[in-house]
C-alpha cells in the first residue's frame, strides 16, 4: 500500500498532546496503524511531550511511593489483537468486530453509513459508497477527516486510495466520487455539520447527523 496523503503536523501534534476530539483521535489512530511514516513522526512529537514533562517537577505526597508499591499487580500480557484484512484494530474496537459486524444504515443513492460511539464535539462514521457513486457536493463548517479503508475516491483535489487521509476545511467544497471497480469504504470524522449545496440533503442532515 502506497499512502500519499498523510496526517498534517498540526493534527499529529494535537494527537500527541491529547487535544483532539475522540472522533479525530480515532481517525488518526487508524491512519497511524497503516502508516509507519506517520508513526515515526508521532514518536518525535511524543518526545516533545516527554521533554516538557521533564520540567514539571512537583513534590509527591510523603507516602506515595509505598502506597503505589502496595498496589503493583502484574497482569499477563494481552493477546495481540487479531489482524483483519481491511480494518485496523482501533477501528475494530469501536465497531465491536470486523466489517461484517457494522450496522449500516442507508442514507440514499446506495450510500450507507454507521455512526461510531464517541464523545460529543465531533462525530465519527463509516461510509460505504458503491463503486462509481457520487456523494452530494458539500462544503465544511469545520474540519472533515476522511480516511480510505478500501477502494478509492476522487474529488476536485486528488485521488485517495487505501490509507490516504483527506483533510478538508472551510475552504474546500468538493464532490467525492467512488472509483469504478470496487466499492469504497471510508472512516470520516467531522467537528461541525457539513454544508450541503442541495436542498434535499440539507433537509435530511439532522436525521443523518452529518
Amino acid at each position, binding site marked *: 500500500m502506497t499512502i500519499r496523503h498523510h496526517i*498534517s*503536523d*498540526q*493534527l*499529529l*501534534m*494535537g494527537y*500527541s*498532546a*491529547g*487535544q*483532539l*476530539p*475522540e472522533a*479525530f*483521535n*480515532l481517525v488518526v*489512530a*487508524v491512519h*497511524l*496503524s497503516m502508516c*509507519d511514516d506517520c*508513526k*515515526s*513522526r508521532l*514518536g*518525535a*512529537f*511524543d*518526545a*516533545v*511531550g*516527554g*521533554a*516538557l*514533562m521533564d*520540567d*514539571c*517537577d*512537583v513534590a*509527591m505526597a510523603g507516602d*506515595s*511511593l509505598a*502506597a*503505589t*508499591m502496595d*498496589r*503493583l*499487580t*502484574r*497482569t499477563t*500480557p494481552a493477546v*495481540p489483537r487479531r489482524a483483519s484484512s481491511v480494518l*485496523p*484494530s*482501533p477501528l475494530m*474496537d469501536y465497531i465491536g468486530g470486523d466489517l461484517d459486524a457494522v450496522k449500516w444504515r442507508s442514507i440514499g443513492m446506495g450510500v450507507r453509513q454507521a455512526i461510531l460511539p*464517541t*464523545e460529543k464535539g465531533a462525530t465519527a462514521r463509516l461510509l460505504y459508497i458503491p463503486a462509481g457513486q457520487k456523494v452530494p457536493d458539500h462544503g465544511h463548517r469545520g*474540519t472533515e477527516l476522511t480516511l480510505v479503508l478500501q477502494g478509492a475516491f476522487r474529488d476536485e483535489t486528488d485521488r485517495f486510495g487505501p490509507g490516504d487521509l483527506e483533510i478538508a476545511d472551510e475552504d474546500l467544497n468538493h464532490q467525492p466520487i467512488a472509483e469504478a471497480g470496487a466499492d469504497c469504504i471510508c472512516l470520516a470524522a467531522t467537528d461541525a455539520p457539513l454544508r450541503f449545496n442541495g436542498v434535499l440533503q440539507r433537509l435530511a442532515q439532522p436525521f443523518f447527523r452529518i
Partner: protein
Amino acid sequence: MLDFTPHQKADAQPPGQFYAVGGAPLCVRQKGLSVPSDTVEDDWGVLILKVRDNQDKAAFAALFRHFAPRIKGFLMKSGASASLAEECAQDVMATLWQKAHLFDPTRASAATWIFTIARNRRIDALRKSRRPEPEDLPWGPEAEPDQQDALELSQDTERLGAALALLPEKQRQLIERAYFGDLTHSEIAAETGLPLGTIKSRIRLALERLRHKMS
C-alpha cells in the same frame, strides 16, 4: 542545525550508580540487551527493562522518585487539582509496572513513553473519554531491541530537551500551551523550531527493522 550539548539536571543523574558496588563499572545485563552504564547518558530505559524482566522493585522505586513528581506537575499544569494529579501520577507509575513489556527503547525514550501513559491518563481523568491507540507491532522472541539504536534515540531525545530549553520564550510557551491543553487543535501551530527530524528517522529505522524481523 546548532550543536546542542546535552545538559543534565542535578536530580537527573543516571541512576546506574545505585546498583554499582564499590565503584566498579556496572554492566546491566538484560535479555538480549546489555548496556554498560558508564557510557549511557540516561539509563532510565534500562530500569524499565529491569522492571519488565525481573520485576525489580528497586528499579521501580528509582523510576518513581524521578518520574512521579514530573507526571504530577504535568497533570497540574494541564488543569488537574493537586490531589487528582497525585492520584493519577500513582496510577501512571502502576501502569508502567504493568505494561513494561510494551516499552521499546528503540522507539521511545523512558521519558517519552511515560509521557504517553500520563497523557492517556489525563484524557481519561479530565475528559472521561476513550483514547484510541494505533495498532502496535508486537515484540516476538527474536525481535529484541538493539542496544545501539536505543542509546542513540536516548541521546537524540536528550538533545531535544536541551534545544527546548534554548528556544525563545514565546516559541516555548506556544508549545507548552499546546501540550498543557490551553489550545484547541485548530489553534495549534505545529512549527516547533525543534530538531525532530533525527528522532523521526531513528524511529522509522527501528520500525523497518522490526517489520523485517517479523516477516
